[in-house]
């Protein structure tokens, strides 16, 4: 009986931990995605995919020149 209760509790705890792990993992992945977006790394990946180009120094410079030109024409708030 005690073993069964222990098993049920252990199973429940494991389930909760798995859920927490999945959720924490999801949050961390979301944060990393946000950081990559703010860092323009995702935008660069989209640029490469759109132009069918491979990553190179010249390609990054082409992308970043256009990206920065647009970005720094926008106001930032106080």
């Amino acid at each position, binding site marked *: 009986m005690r073993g069964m209760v222990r098993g049920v509790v252990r199973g429940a705890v494991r389930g909760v931990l798995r859920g927490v792990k999945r959720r924490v993992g999801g949050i961390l992945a979301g944060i990393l995605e946000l*950081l990559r977006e703010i860092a323009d790394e995702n935008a660069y990946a989209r640029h490469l995919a759109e132009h069918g180009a491979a990553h190179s120094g010249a390609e990054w*410079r082409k992308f970043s020149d256009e990206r*920065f030109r647009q970005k720094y024409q*926008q*106001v930032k*708030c106080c």
Partner: protein
Amino acid sequence: MGIVKRLLWAAVACGAAISLGAIATSRGEQINSMWLVIAAALSYMLGYRFYAKFIATKVMMLNDERATPAERMENGHDYVITNKWIVFGQHFAAIAGPGPLVGPVLAAQFGFLPGTLWIIIGAVFGGAVQDFVILFASMRRDGKSLGQIAREEVGKVGGIVALVTVLLIMIILLAVVSLVVVNALAGSPWGTFTIAATMPIAVLMGLYLRYWRPGRVLEISVIGFLLVLASVFGGQWISTSSLAPMFTMSAMALAIWIIVYGFFASALPVWLLLAPRGYLSTFVKLGVIVLLAVGILLVRPELQMPAFTRFIDGTGPVFAGKVFPFCFITIACGAVSGFHSLISSGTTPKMLSKETHATPVGYGCMMLESFVAIMAMIAACVLDPGVYFAINAPGGVVGKTAETAVATISGWGFPVTAEQMAALAHSVGEATLFSRTGGAPSFAVGMAHIFAKGGGGDVVLGFWYHFAIMFEALFILTILDSGTRVGRFMLQDLLGQVWKPLGRTGWMPGIIGFSAAIVGAWGYFLVQGVRDPLGGVNSLWPLFGIANQLLAGIALSVATTIILKMHGAKFMWITCGPLLWLVVVTFSAGWQKIFSPIPALGFLAQANQLQAGLDAGKVAGAAVAQTQAVIFNARLDAGICGLFMVLVAVVLIDSLRIWLGILQGTRERNSMESPFVLSRLSGEEA
């Protein structure tokens, strides 16, 4: 809504009412900062769940079946379908600057209550509504800017006035934020070294990204952040070494350095300095905001500042003017900020994949910024009031020596001693903390106290103080050089309509000439602020606040016009209410700043008093030229304040004319919304 949900929301409403009641009725006893946090968080939840939802469904009628500009006009550059939380992060990074940190710290001179209530109520019913409606308006108009929307919906005059107002506000904004940096770094070798070190670090990052490891932005940002941390540590060593005199600068010397820096930073290629520092400052900003929130939740400090101080009568040393209207223009970002309307009609509407995402991004981001302002208010109010006033009151008000300052401040009923201030200055690694006006040093002391209580004690106070100063200065400098660039583009845009070649943004003589013109304009006001005997913050921050809130007036009148065209008078109150409040606040504040007979408050009274002193021969020698300059500047400030008010009055009258026409049926409700296109994304998760 099910019964459980109803009960939950009823509990949230009760919690908000109880916590707001607790902070509103506390008198004479200390209250815990958690009351402010809970009151704000629950009010935002209610505002978001009910008011934002009401606006989204009944007024805007957001429809996910309707394709957004990001979907219809996707080009991979500015029109890009983007995940809503990423748009949220980018929008928040663009709207949150030093304003929500500095404004509440300055307004704490009235006590914690007026500013806190304004931050919460202003954001829920004013600021978030403005950001949300303008975002919606721009999204339904192909992502057009506020100026373009104003031109189409209100008229040509509104569009041009909006452009001129934005340019003028930008100049005052850049001056006042650079003054905050100057006041924080003057006489501080530790702080000056740390900030100076961020420039070669940014250049190194720029070269790394451009040539050595192209595209590795996160990687170099981590390296840059570690180097900045090292410079904060290194600054302590510098401040006690033989190099200290090199980094110990007067306010005027720092102002000149910042002006020279501003010119070069705005004229240099963006990839070299501006972009890498922009990345670094965004990451540090987001990180510190999270850290501060965690720190406050862990430490739960008691507020030392009373609910109200005696200075609600207008005799405050930080800035002159009564709690009404000056509390409401001192805190702009954090409650209502007109500047946000430029971002809500900038890149953000071009990235939303679904119309309903405008609610979390437009309304929700403002809630978060308002929460940052609450945290800044807490950081200021956990200080002993005597210490707060010793840091924030200018020498021209409390006296230039420690003895006179503590005697004056203690005489106001806020006891503080010279020994207490000396010990505090020593513990944060500064020579003195008296009259370090501008808000940044007192915010840094408050933040350092919270972090130090979280772990490390007094040993780490100096590190956290300088970390906070670095954090504020870093993104202020980013605003300075990107703002100068944007100002140059705006000026070229305006003058290019007179003579086409002047509008060419890649023309080198134009880059140099227009950069110099913009830097010269804000630099002039910066020098004026440094020379001001009452501390430049006293004149420049209210001027900036008035201008920013007047821009909010323009945005809200455009928003009202749009709502009127959609529904008639039925929902006008949503934007008309905050508009009316802002008109009353800004015009009465502007009127007092120009015409008040009190010299500490009214620009003209200050000029007249100084002129009378000159005429009576009370000023002699080198002080004559300086006094003449202060007189000229006070009259110039009066002129600029008057100009802002006239410009906004023009837009308001123009809008009123259109509203009356619509309400009387003599004008058609011709809204300029883009035609409906069915979305292919409506069933998808995003």
